[in-house]
């Protein structure tokens, strides 16, 4: 029998239906990453599992217990399922070690010494034993999230649920939290992790759920989902998370938003400082000194400049596709655009662009590195 069994789960709010019809099973010891676009019910799904949300219809069996039954002992059922939230939510009125001692003492009847010993062991496991007597506000976001994970473990749950555990963290703190979660996966704890960290989903999980439009769209091993997705939506999503794209629709475009989005992508793909800086320089230069003046010169209100940057994780090179087709269609002289390629490499960016080429559909590619 599966540890978790979900049948025809549906959740409706007035005016929204985040979960339409979800069917899934999770076996003991599985580490399931739940990926998918924002707002497609991933969080709602795992919040239904421990009844922080009450499903509209359907059935959820956890360890053989129907958690939707009206007479279910919710607190007891929840003790079997730890949960780690995006915002860690440590209890600010308690020392770090007390955050880990509270629930076992209050709910499991553990004596103080045992709770303390266990808390220190768990803190040691997440690498924070020396912070035991600190106040939560004295810790960094990554440290707090590790404490929150240890707090969940203190109740000795069978299942641990993670709701975007790294989304609120600075990029450099993501890895310290992910490595803790990965180490738990190796210990055989059953985990469901809603995440945007594709590398974690690919490397640390035994199975990946792709959720879209309120349904479990596709489920399979990381290899299946990332390398051979069966459905178009999954393919698009997997492509999107590996590529950065941006469109400029006005000569008064939002420059800071574009740059911060680019940098977030580079951080997510673990691109080095050097290549990140080069990508930024190239895109800045093309936009502000070449394309925008060109659009202004020809009076094009919506230049529709498109960028698409793709780079493998940790790669030293990045491929930038500059989409100028709309600009060309808006009456900009074709020879001017064609002359651009030489100008870009020759004049401004010779240190940053390795080579350029035009693909089969006529798109201009710059290889940055």
């Amino acid at each position: 029998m599966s540890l978790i069994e979900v049948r025809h789960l549906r959740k409706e709010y007035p005016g929204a239906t985040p979960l339409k019809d979800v069917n899934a099973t999770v076996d003991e010891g599985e580490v399931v990453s739940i990926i998918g676009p924002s707002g497609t019910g991933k969080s709602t799904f795992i919040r239904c599992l421990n009844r922080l949300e009450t499903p509209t219809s359907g059935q959820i069996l956890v360890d053989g217990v129907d958690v939707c039954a009206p007479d279910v002992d919710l607190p007891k059922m929840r003790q079997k399922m730890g949960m780690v939230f995006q915002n860690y939510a440590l209890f600010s009125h308690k020392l770090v070690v007390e955050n880990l001692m509270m629930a076992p003492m209050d709910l499991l009847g553990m004596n103080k010494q045992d709770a303390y010993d266990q808390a220190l062991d768990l803190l040691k496991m997440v690498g924070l034993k020396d912070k035991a007597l600190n106040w939560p506000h004295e810790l960094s976001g990554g440290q707090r999230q590790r404490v929150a994970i240890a707090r969940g473990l203190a109740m000795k749950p069978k299942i641990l649920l993670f709701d975007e555990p790294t989304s609120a963290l600075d990029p450099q703190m993501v890895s310290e939290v992910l490595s803790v979660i990965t180490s738990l996966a190796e210990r055989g704890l059953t985990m469901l992790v809603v995440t945007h960290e594709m590398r974690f989903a690919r490397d640390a999980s035994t199975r990946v759920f792709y959720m879209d439009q309120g349904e479990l769209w596709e489920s399979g091993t990381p290899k299946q989902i990332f390398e051979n997705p069966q459905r178009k939506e999954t393919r698009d999503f997997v492509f999107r998370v590996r590529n950065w794209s941006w469109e400029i629709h006005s000569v008064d475009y939002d420059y800071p938003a574009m740059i911060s989005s680019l940098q977030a992508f580079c951080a997510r793909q673990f691109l080095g400082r050097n290549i990140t800086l080069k990508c930024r320089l190239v895109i800045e230069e093309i936009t502000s000194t070449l394309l925008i003046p060109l659009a202004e010169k020809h009076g094009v209100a919506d230049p529709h400049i498109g960028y698409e940057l793709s780079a493998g994780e940790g790669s030293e090179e990045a491929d930038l596709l500059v989409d100028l087709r709309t600009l060309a269609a808006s009456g900009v002289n074709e020879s001017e655009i064609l002359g651009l390629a030489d100008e870009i490499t020759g004049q401004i960016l010779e240190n940053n662009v390795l080579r350029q080429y035009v693909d089969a559909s006529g798109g201009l590619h710059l290889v940055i590195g």
Partner: protein
Amino acid sequence: MVKRARNRSLFLLLAAMLLAFGLVPVFAYADGEEPTPMYQTLDELAGKRFAYVNGSVYNLKVQEQIDGTSEEFYPSLAECVAAVEAGKEDAAVQLSYCCQLVVNRRPGTVALLPQPVADVSEGFFFPRGSTLTAQFNELIAKFGADGTLRALEEKWVAADEAGKTLPEQDWDAPNGTLRFVTSGVIEPFSYVGEGGVPKGYDVELALLIARELGYHLEVSTLPMDSIFAAVDTGKADFGGTLTNTPERASVCDFSDTVMPTTISVVVKSQEGASAGEGGFFGGMAESFRKTFIEEDRWQLILSGLGVTLLISVLAGAFGLLLGYGTVLARRSGVRWVGKLVDAYQALMGRIPIVVVLMLLYYVVFGSIDVAGELVAVIAFTLAFGATAGSTMWTAVKGIDVIQEETGLALGYTRHQVFSKIVFPQARQQFMPQLMGQFVNLVKDTAIVGYIAVADLTRAGDLIRARTMDAFFPLISTAIIYFLICLLLAWVLRRIAARFDTEQRPRNIEGVVEK
């Protein structure tokens, strides 16, 4: 038929009594039927509770005549009579003319004792050494001789309000303007007429004298307790009228009597009565000695301080419980309960506490014999409960909902989540604000004098009214309040420190390191 006959005999009895009262010439301006007083003679009032107007010294006269009476002071005769009507006091004492007026204005509920208590002499008073005193005395004597005073008396005690107007100040005033302060609460001597203009026997006499002396007159009204101070401190050139006592005469100069008159006792009429209790006292002398030593007035202040602290601490404790109750009620999620709490907090937030206090004392508990102190505790519990409750609720609401979900996800029940996780974190935030609100509560209790509770402020008022020394008792009261609030804030900080994580030692008691 039987009923009608009984009514007729009752009517005849009343008529006979009226006839007897009508023989007392001083009450010539009385109109309408006289109700029957509860008591007929002064002796029957031995050991009873007497109400006086702030600043009056008629208690001394009464105590000469009647044994074992207690005394309470109120802002004006109206409050005294209201207390008598409510059964909180047995008798109210004031100038006979004033008493008769009150009895006429409240037909049936109160009545006048047939015999006046004593003769009294009221006069204008001046800053010590003022040259006006002698000039006034000369004119009072002249007006007495030529019948002016008699005419004034007849005019102002008449039932017809229409004729009671003041002369225009159309005379020349080579000597400038005199500033005259009067209470404005003692009809027919000094009261506020149409358009808020002060008038009355005292006011017109002051005008006539000013005209003779070549002055114009500027009349203003002040609370009873303040008029003596206004003259003493030079904010006015003269005031009046008040009873001349040796102690007062040691601070200000008094004119001769402007109208020889009597004081009378107002008691409940025979249509119902209830019992209660009361009793408080203050006395008379100069600055510190006058305020604290004479007549052991320090005891008054000490017991006032005790009352202030008692009311504050009880209302603080009960208000805290009530406030916590409103938080729990709101958390229940029941719609109408939330609306009820909203309504309660909106009501308390929009009605001045002094009005709430008086509503409770004179209306809600009007017919019940209940100690003013208890009413005060109830009123301030309601007030503090509303502010404390909304402060707590704001802090509780400010705790991120994720804290609650985290607790639930760990396996706590909803109730445990609140008591162990949400409330302790909210408490860290609302404690400083709540402490400030409690200190405000202590200061706010200064208004309990309105319901004749002798707190610290009231003790100061009473002493002030007796000594007629404004500065020293006020400063003393201010200093005592300041020190008490300082002390309370310190105690509260010590208590709050127990809940403050920043001040807690970083250790876990009762465990050993492996």
